């Protein structure tokens, strides 16, 4: 083992600096959005305290022995499931979903903890010595590990977080090295399910595509038949899931297709968000000078629509800087994941990357109007304690893996 006394060798500034800049931009935006708001005026100070707490968690996680994550995998996963069940029973309702625990003045979302639990458990399962991602049983078990929390979160109902989980599970399985055919088996039910949402024509078309693909792979008839049945089931299941969704989520899916159809209802936020960002121009209207932000056109802008504040007040340059910082962070995580010699740690890193990325994609996608309005926060930037803590916890894991990367042969 080579001994290197340089700090950069132990501490990855490539992870730390972008996230710190993002949290700083987030604090500015929260300050601007809540300054003149009667109910949320204290949120800047609260977020500042959360940020300090999050940094402490980062450094604690950073200093733990790297092996502890492997040991923590099963207990943490089981604890997460327990919390997710608990929140359904005794949780607090916020905007129609039961996803919060009341802890005095602060609320707490167990689905945030479950992200870490699920990443660790899934990675641990897939990196077993005799794991075989091509075996039917291993894929099924991996999917079960992943989809138990997804099911529980859908029951809350929290569509946004469920999508994050699904994306994260698929990315980890992909990174593990699933074959093209198995990936097709895993993905096609989801594809059919989404197609079924749009109506029977799309549903039938997607089923035809599935049959054609199955034919091309030339697997045996029994196996192909089961996969066909699985897809058919997924399509019918969608109808059921859609009916379980709360009306506000159904409306949001509809309003994505045509936001102007209901400009005052669920399309309202989408339009106001676009107006805020678009009117920002190249340099923005200046800190604390955005009309849309200062006049509070978007309700609770400091949470899911925080990127509008950046877009309106800091303009194209500010918006690109934020997106660029995220890209830098993602590439950095991908690089560490590729370099990690331990399979478990590499999978964990990819899981973390995928959680950040899907949050980023859905959040910014909805504010710029290329994705439907699904309420999930922008990592490091949005107001919110439990999400900030968990994001820095995950960043701590990544920095930790970087620190000890040379200890694994």
């Amino acid at each position, binding site marked *: 083992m080579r001994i290197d006394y340089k700090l950069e060798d132990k501490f990855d500034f490539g992870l730390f600096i972008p996230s710190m800049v993002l949290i700083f931009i987030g604090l500015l935006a929260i300050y601007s959005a809540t300054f003149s708001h009667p109910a949320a005026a204290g949120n800047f100070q609260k977020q500042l305290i959360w940020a300090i707490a999050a940094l402490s968690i980062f450094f604690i996680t950073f200093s733990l022995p790297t092996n502890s994550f492997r040991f923590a995998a099963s207990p943490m996963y089981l604890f997460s499931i327990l919390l997710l069940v608990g929140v359904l029973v005794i949780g607090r309702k916020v905007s129609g979903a039961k996803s919060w625990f009341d802890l005095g003045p602060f609320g707490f979302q167990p689905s945030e903890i479950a992200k870490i639990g699920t990443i660790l458990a899934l990675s641990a399962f897939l990196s077993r010595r005799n794991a075989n991602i091509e075996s039917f049983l291993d894929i099924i078990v991996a999917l079960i590990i992943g989809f138990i929390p997804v099911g529980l979160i859908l029951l809350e109902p929290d569509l946004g977080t469920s999508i994050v989980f699904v994306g994260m599970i698929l990315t980890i399985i992909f990174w593990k090295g699933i074959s093209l055919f198995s990936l097709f088996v895993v993905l096609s039910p989801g594809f059919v399910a989404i197609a079924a949402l749009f109506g029977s024509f799309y549903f039938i078309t997607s089923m035809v595509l599935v049959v054609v693909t199955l034919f091309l792979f030339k697997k045996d008839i029994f196996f192909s038949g089961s996969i066909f049945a699985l897809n058919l089931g997924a399509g019918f299941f969608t109808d059921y899931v859609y009916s379980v969704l709360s009306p506000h989520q159904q409306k949001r899916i509809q309003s994505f297709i045509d936001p102007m159809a209901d400009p*005052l209802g669920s399309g*309202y936020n989408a339009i106001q968000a676009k*107006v805020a960002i678009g*009117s920002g121009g190249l340099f923005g209207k200046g800190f604390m000078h955005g009309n849309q932000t200062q006049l509070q056109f978007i309700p609770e802008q400091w949470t899911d629509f925080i990127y509008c504040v950046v877009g309106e007040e800091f303009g194209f340059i500010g918006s690109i800087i934020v997106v660029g910082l995220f890209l830098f962070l993602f*590439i950095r995580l991908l690089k560490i*994941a590729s370099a*990690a010699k331990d399979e478990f740690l590499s999978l964990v890193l990819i899981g973390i990357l995928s959680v950040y990325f899907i949050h980023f994609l859905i959040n910014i996608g909805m504010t710029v109007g290329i994705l439907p309005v699904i309420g999930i926060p922008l990592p490091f930037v949005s107001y919110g304690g439990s999400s900030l803590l968990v994001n820095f916890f995950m960043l701590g894991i990544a920095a930790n893996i970087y620190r000890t990367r040379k200890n694994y042969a």
Partner: protein
Amino acid sequence: MSESGFASTSRRTILSFILISTFAVISFRLFQMQILQQESYEEKSADNSIKAIEQMPLRGVFFDRNMKVVVSNIPAYTLRITSAYYNRSLNKILETVIDADSGFIDKILYNNRIYSKYIPIRIKRGIDFKVVSWLEENSEHLNGVDYIVEMQRGYPSGIMGSHMFGYTKEVSPQQLMKEKEYYKPGDYVGHNGIEKTYEEYLRGIKGYNYILVDSKRKEIGKYNDGTGDVASIKGNDLLLSIDADVQRIAEEELKGKSGGVVAIEPRTGEILALVSAPEYDLTQFAYTTSKDFLNQLYTDPTKPLFNRATMSVKPPGSTFKLMAAIAALDMGIITTETTIYCGGGFTFGRFFKCHGGPHGSLNVIHAIEKSCNTFFYNLIYRIGLDKWQEYAKKFSFAGKTGIDIGEEVAGLIPNSKYYEKIYGENWPRSIMASLGIGQGEVSVTPLQLAIYVSLIANNGRTFTPHIVKGYLDNNTRQLIPFQFKEINLGIKQEAFDIVKQGMYLVVNGAGTATWIKSKDIEIAGKTGTAQNPHGKDHAVFVGFAPFDNPQIAVAVVIENVGFGSTYAAPIAKKMIEAYLLKDKLKKEKKVVPELKDKIIGAVIED
């Protein structure tokens, strides 16, 4: 590492590709929105923004049992200032017009400085109509000053009902956290009494008007000509079981006194009147409450905010003898044949005096009639303390009654464990003697006494006491009744019959309240005097009428006045008459309608 397996280069390339292409798409989209289409968005942002304005629904009103409105909504004018357009040089003249101290407006504006200066700030609620006309006439000189019409609570029937109705108040931050979906800062919410318990029925559903505003939040006009507006939906009106006439009589009778009165319809548990005196003026809470008024309320030594009807606990005095009599009869310890000799008192360790005695040999009926202490000193030893407490608890003592206005206390009925804790195994048994006549540690609320006498009147059956019968459907105006729990004591009918005979004689025989005997109605009751170590005794009376078919049961507790028969019983009589004679008159009214006015007038004079 294989080319296609775990963490392969090709997989890394695919992920990199996804990351970079996402970055490219978002960057392009930002470029398109912020650079290419900036002007069109800028325009929308500057001139044409849609803003949702909340429309507050009308709060449901309260009807009494005869469909008389007792709590209503009345319009009130509120003066507002929008600081962005306002010039402080107007302060002086405005303060003169609204009759406020100098510096009043500056203070309010300063307190609200955290809000956007484009948001109108409420300066004074409930301004005079003359002020409104003045504002209209001078509007061109009054930039940034306007008024709006808001609804406030009115009490048109002339009854106070302060502890029962409750008032609304600006929503608290804690409540805001809990019910984020409904309430916004500045909203009014039921704070106590019925207003609080039935808040969800009363508040209605908010509406929204969508208007176009410019970047300074100035209204330009309606969006889409208001076609997308959502009208607010009025809250549900509540039908109370209160009888406004009975309530008014009780309030008048209690003026200047302190105490609590509760009247109940025995068969249903419906509360006909509930008064705690002294009262406070609910109209002062109708909107903003003046600090002076609040300070005065909080520091008033007579504690007007304290609900004496449900929260003040006092010994019930001799009214509690009925309970002991029922217990003994139900257990079969005594019958009407059983007599006890009263020689003027009772000795158990020490001598306990009987008042007005010696009564000689008497049975339970006459013991109630004369309120003979000696009889009941003896009786509690025969019943036994724990059994006695068990019966008391059946009659809803020493527990919360579940009345639908929240605030109430349980009171206390001691048992042997209670005394063992204080004095040990060998607690002095002589304590029991005073318990037997409702003195000592026994402490009950007027509400509990009213349920107690209801249960006696209706032979051990009633419902959880309640003030609200149900709500009225907004469209059909049909009553949707609330459900209340039935209470059934399962005590022998004979026990009630015998005790009621005694109660009848209290008023109509040679008892302790014969002078409230009424020629129109047969009233039955029991007087009591609660010993008060701190001053004059408390007067207590429980009663019901008519004797054969009880329609109303009343409990009256008047503090620091003395003997129960003198002070409490007449109040009960007046309430009973107000309730029962009105019903009779109404029937007569149908027969001879032309005499209507005269008859009503006569009753009021009585």
